[in-house]
């Protein structure tokens, strides 16, 4: 147990054992999957048309945004070239689906249906459509376990979008709460501030939204303010997640060296 808690030497063993329990997981997931299939198959034509319409409109809107974004990206790269900084944007993503099984109630974890075969790696960032969800901690042959940012053993470096103030978002074990410790009482952070990944620590690519500050309490006599944030990702509702390969990681080969380090965001 100590070996499993402190290191990654038992990864192989876990992976082997996970193959044995795979049929059980598949079977447990079956009712959920079947329900989805049934509702999809018997959906009425009108509902499908409506959905189609809605998606087309959404797509159009996103395309318009994308044009703007392309121009901004080009401009950004040009400016960065002028500054001579090596910054790459454009990450490769893969969509994975959640497997419907209940895991250990003490950990905020989810099981996804992609694994080593899809070239996932330990420490890989996982997003949903809105924000950062967590990172991969255990890669098996055909599935992997993702620890969510609200798990009490997880911490990730963030910054306030408004002014670039850096902090660390630490999980609390409660699905809709993150806390940002060690911010001094006079730090410029307010309710409603957006927190985005800062990219420090090299685990998460910079600039992805993480959470929104919901309360800032100054306690007289305490050196630090108590800042609580709510994750923007729908941690308890999503069905599909995005896995990200960022360019930085591929370039520096972080992926292969990652094995030795604990599954935490740096700075924790």
């Amino acid at each position: 147990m100590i070996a499993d808690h402190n290191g990654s030497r038992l990864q192989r063993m876990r992976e082997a054992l996970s193959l044995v329990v795979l049929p059980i997981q598949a079977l447990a997931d079956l009712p959920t999957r079947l329900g989805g299939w049934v509702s999809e198959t018997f959906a009425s034509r009108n509902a499908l048309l409506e959905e189609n319409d809605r998606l087309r409109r959404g797509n159009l809107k996103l395309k318009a945004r994308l044009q703007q974004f392309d121009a901004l990206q080009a401009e950004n790269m040009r400016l960065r070239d002028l500054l001579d900084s090596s910054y790459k944007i454009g990450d490769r993503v893969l969509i994975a689906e959640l497997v419907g099984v209940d895991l250990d109630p003490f950990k905020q974890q989810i099981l996804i249906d992609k694994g080593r075969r899809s070239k996932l790696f330990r420490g890989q960032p996982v997003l949903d459509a809105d924000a950062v969800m967590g990172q991969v901690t255990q890669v098996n042959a055909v599935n992997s376990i993702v620890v969510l940012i609200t798990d009490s053993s997880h911490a990730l470096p963030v910054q306030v979008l408004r002014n670039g103030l850096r902090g660390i978002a630490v999980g609390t074990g409660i699905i809709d709460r993150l806390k940002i410790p060690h911010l001094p009482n006079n730090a410029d952070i307010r309710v409603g501030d957006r927190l985005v990944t800062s990219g420090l620590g090299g685990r998460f690519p910079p600039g992805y939204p993480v959470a929104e500050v919901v309360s800032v309490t100054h306690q007289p006599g305490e050196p630090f303010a108590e800042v609580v944030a709510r994750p923007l990702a729908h941690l308890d509702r999503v069905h599909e997640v995005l896995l990200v390969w960022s360019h930085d990681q591929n370039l520096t080969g972080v992926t292969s060296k990652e094995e030795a380090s604990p599954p935490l965001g740096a700075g924790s």
Partner: protein
Amino acid sequence: MKQGGLVILASFAVALLLAVMPLPEWARPFRPQWYTLVLIYWCIALPERVGVLGGWLLGLFVDVLTGALLGQHALALALVAFVTVTLHRRIRVMPRYQQMAAVAVLLLIEKLLSLWIVAITSNNPAPWMYWSGTLVGALLWPWVYIILRDLRRRFRVG
């Protein structure tokens, strides 16, 4: 494998399946410890075949299945199996309600050991509801007992 080893394995597999079956959010804390109940039954019925090693292996699978710390459930279930095998003669002859009480204590042992390990390795607080699964499990014991006994007789596991 001796007579009916497959039946024992199948009952454990079904228990593991029930342990990870998705439940609605409100029902989750009430999930009984299915695999512990099944383990206790086999430890009482066939202590010479299912014992500490069986409990430990079962726990290992639970750990991998639920993504818990490897060894957490293994340790707890090995201890439960040990206590059950030691006391199996007494538990066998108890009347049903007294058996339920004994099983409740065994289930509590498992939960408590798990909780200790969780508390040492992380700072997650356990809600009061954490213990409710034990109560549900103890109440379900007579049915688990009858179902598994009939299975054992039908397939002549022994």
